[in-house]
Every structure is written in structure tokens, then in C-alpha cells.
């Protein structure tokens, strides 16, 4: 009974009083914005890092770039994302005199963080593509970069799509820490709903439900994408 009372109190706040509007217009929107743009930035920078890592290493420049990438990946994988957010928002950006707001800070840090993980995923993907593909491109006179972009990376992405899907899901869930730097996500909105009468059970259950549905949808999306990309495999 107690729970039902609590639930109806929550429902009043959530539905009748229009609290859900904020859940969607701010919470869900920011959560998705951070996760999606984070993944996009992550894939772009991560692919670049992966390409540098698989470059032939007898010249100086690739060696230096490789070292830089190692430090980068080491830092972003070696520290919690909350620490990175706090450092950027409260220390680094103020010191540098830039203020890009908390949402953009989150997008940037999630992107940079994701790039470190995607680079490892992508490197494995690139290495899973038969080396003959790169050789054939190079033998035709194409450079390393165009062969990478047109031939190897598209095949690598196909191979790593399930793992990229996992990365996206992890990213969505990790966004629940962005309120540390004053950004408003699902967690923040539901906490505020709970704050209204100090009852948190129902709001947080609702929040969990939204996360689950969201992640089921993402899973489905990646399954469909995979099917589509694997069309040219079959006879």
C-alpha cells in the first residue's frame, strides 16, 4: 500500500503536473546528445589513433605520434570519467579562460574519453581485416590514408559493430555522472522530482525503466545496422 501511495504521488508529479516534459526535453535529450555526439567524436578520433597505431613504424613521425597516442589513451583509460569532467570543468577550462558551458564540456570529455576506448576497439577491427586489402590498395598507387579510409576502416567497422554498440551503451549509462559538472541528464531530472517530496523509490524506478528501454532500442538499432552491413557477405 505504502508503495502504491508513493507511486501515485510520483505519478501526479510526473504525469499530471507535467514533470515528464522535463524528463524528455532536458533529461533524455541531454543524455542522448552527450552519448551520441560523444560516440561520434570517439569514433572520429579513435579511428585516427588506431590508424596511427597500425602505421609502419620505421619513420620518426609515426613513432612520435604513436607515443602521443599512448599517453592519451593511458590518461583517458586510466582515470575515471568523473575525474576528467571535474578537471576539465573546474580546473582546466577556468585556467585557460574558456567557458563552453557544462553540456558542451560533457560532450567534449565524453568524446575524448570514448576515443581512447574506440581506438583499441578500432585497432582490433583494423587488424582483423586481411592485410591483402591494404596491400591491394597500396599496389594500385593509393596512399596509406585513402586505402585506410576507403577500404580497411569500412570493413573494420563492420567487424566491430557489436563492440561499438557496447561502447555506445556504456556511454549512455556513464552520462549519469554529468550532474557532477552541473549538466542536467535523466538522473538529475528524476532526482529533482524525488526532491519535491523526498520520495526517491518511484522516480528512480521510472528512471531505470527509461534507461532499459533506451538501451533495448540501441541494441535493436545496432542489430539492424549489422544485418544491413553484412548484406554483401552473402552470395
Amino acid at each position, binding site marked *: 500500500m505504502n508503495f502504491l501511495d508513493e507511486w501515485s504521488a510520483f505519478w501526479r508529479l510526473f504525469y499530471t503536473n507535467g514533470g515528464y516534459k522535463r524528463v524528455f526535453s532536458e533529461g533524455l535529450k541531454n543524455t542522448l546528445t552527450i552519448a551520441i555526439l560523444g560516440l561520434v567524436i570517439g569514433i572520429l578520433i579513435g579511428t585516427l589513433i588506431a590508424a596511427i597505431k597500425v602505421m609502419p613504424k620505421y619513420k620518426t613521425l609515426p613513432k612520435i605520434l604513436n607515443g602521443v597516442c599512448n599517453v592519451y589513451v593511458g590518461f583517458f583509460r586510466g582515470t575515471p570519467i568523473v575525474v576528467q569532467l571535474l578537471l576539465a570543468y573546474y580546473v582546466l577550462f577556468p585556467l585557460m579562460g574558456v567557458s563552453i558551458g557544462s553540456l558542451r564540456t560533457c560532450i567534449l570529455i565524453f568524446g575524448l574519453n570514448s576515443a581512447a576506448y574506440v581506438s583499441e576497439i578500432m585497432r582490433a577491427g583494423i587488424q582483423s581485416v*586481411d592485410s*591483402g*586489402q591494404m*596491400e*591491394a*590498395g*597500396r*599496389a*594500385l*598507387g*593509393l*596512399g596509406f590514408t*585513402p586505402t585506410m579510409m*576507403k*577500404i580497411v576502416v*569500412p*570493413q573494420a567497422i*563492420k567487424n566491430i559493430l557489436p563492440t561499438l554498440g557496447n561502447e555506445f551503451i556504456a556511454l549512455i549509462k556513464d552520462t549519469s555522472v554529468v550532474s557532477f559538472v552541473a549538466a542536467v541528464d535523466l538522473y538529475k531530472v528524476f532526482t529533482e522530482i524525488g526532491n519535491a517530496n523526498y520520495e526517491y523509490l518511484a522516480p528512480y524506478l521510472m528512471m531505470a525503466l527509461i534507461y532499459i528501454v533506451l538501451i533495448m532500442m540501441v541494441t535493436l538499432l545496432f542489430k539492424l545496422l549489422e544485418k544491413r552491413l553484412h548484406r*554483401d*557477405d*552473402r*552470395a
Partner: protein
Amino acid sequence: MSNQNEMNKELTEELIVIKGLSKSFPIGKKKTLNVLNSIDAVIHRGEKIAVIGPSGSGKSTFLRCLNCMEDPTGGSIIFNGEDLADPKVDINKHREHIGMVFQQFNLFNNKTVLQNIMLAPIYLKTKKAGGLFAKRAVKKQIREEAKEKAMQLLRRIGLEDKANAYPSTLSGGQKQRIAIIRALAMEPEVMLFDEPTSALDPEMVGEVLDLIRQLANEGMTMVIVTHEMGFAREVADRVLFMDGGIIAEDAPPHELFSNPKLPRTQEFLSKVL
């Protein structure tokens, strides 16, 4: 090429001059494996050269050094007035003129047959016309010309109906013939073949050799590593027998096959013929 004099004259123009070509691979710490030991050779324009020899003798490495798929560790390879073994030379520019065909075909799996053939010509011509900044009309023209050329080549091998198929749907013989015309689409000055029929089912060897024979008859310069001794004897102007990282014997096919000079050539031929 019907005129014998004309043919002989043609074979005197030096296309690739190889001097002291060496290649070693690092194995473990501080140790190296010498695979090519100071090879000298000249490839004349229009010449067809077959490379034979026991497994591990360095045939593939030799071929792959010619377009720097393996970077030579010593010596020089003069092609069009530049030394390909010099790391400062823009190798991509030269590779456009050196076609290569692999044992494993290596068609681009994510591209259709037509895209496989058009990709490099379109990319490289567009790049020369200014890349992203090339005029729309120019890009369009490059694409149309490349497509026309590709379809013409596909018709030549009777596979125009496969233009939009993906490589995974093709037979080995079809893949290799497409790999060959993909190289031809660049209008190379010389073609390198590394055991082009070794990965094929026996019934498909013929169709691939037929195509290579056609190219030979049209006067294409080619270096072909092969175990098809009959084909080498029939098509080659010269046969190189490699053993232990050197060209042990270099002679016209009738001489090398009927009358090998070195005992190790005799021994090898007795095993494969």
C-alpha cells in the same frame, strides 16, 4: 608485333634496371634473415619474364621489392629515371604504373566489382585534378570515363553481368580475372604476378592463364612468378631460376628447360616437370 625485327628492337628498351637488390628481414633481436642477396636484373619493355624456383627461394620477395611492397634493404631499382629503392622517392606515383596481381586476389570486399575497378583510377585522377576542390564537371567526367573503361574491361573478360556483384559471390577464377583487369584499368607499364593461379581450383586455372596470355600477346611487359612450367615455357621470353636469394640461372625458356646449366636447376626441374 608480327615483325620479328620490331619485336627484338622493342626488347632492348630497358624499363626496370635492378642493381645489387638486397632484402633482409629482422628476426628476433639483432638477427636478420637475408632473403635477397644482391640481385642484378634488367626488365626490358615488352618482355615477359617468368620467375621459377623452390619455395622460400625469395621469388615473392623479389617481386614485391619491385614496387616496394617490401622495402629493399640495399641496391637500386631504376624505373622511369628514379630509384624506387630510395625512401625519398614518391612510391605511390610509380605504383600507378606497376600493376600487381596477388595469389589471394585481394579484391576489395566492401566494394562491388565495378567499384573495385574504378576506385583507384577515379581517386587518383580526381586527386590530380585538385581533389576535393576539383570542379564538379571534371569529377563527373573522370567518373564516367572510369566507368566506361571498367565496363569495357569487364566485357572483355565476359563478366559485365557481375559489375554490381560483391567479390564474395564470385568464383576464384572470376575474382582473379577481375583483379587482373583492376590492375589493367590503371594502364600500367608493367604487370607483376605472384603465383596468380596457385590459389585456384584446377578447373579455373585455364581461364586466368588465358587472360594473362592475351596480355602477353598484346605486348604487356610482365614478370610472373609461377609454378606453371608449361605456361612459363610457352609465354616467357626469359626465365629466371631463383635459389637461395639469387638469380641462379637466367635464360630463354627453351634453353633453361631443355638444357639447364646448373645442377640445382636440373634438380628443381626434375622435381616439377
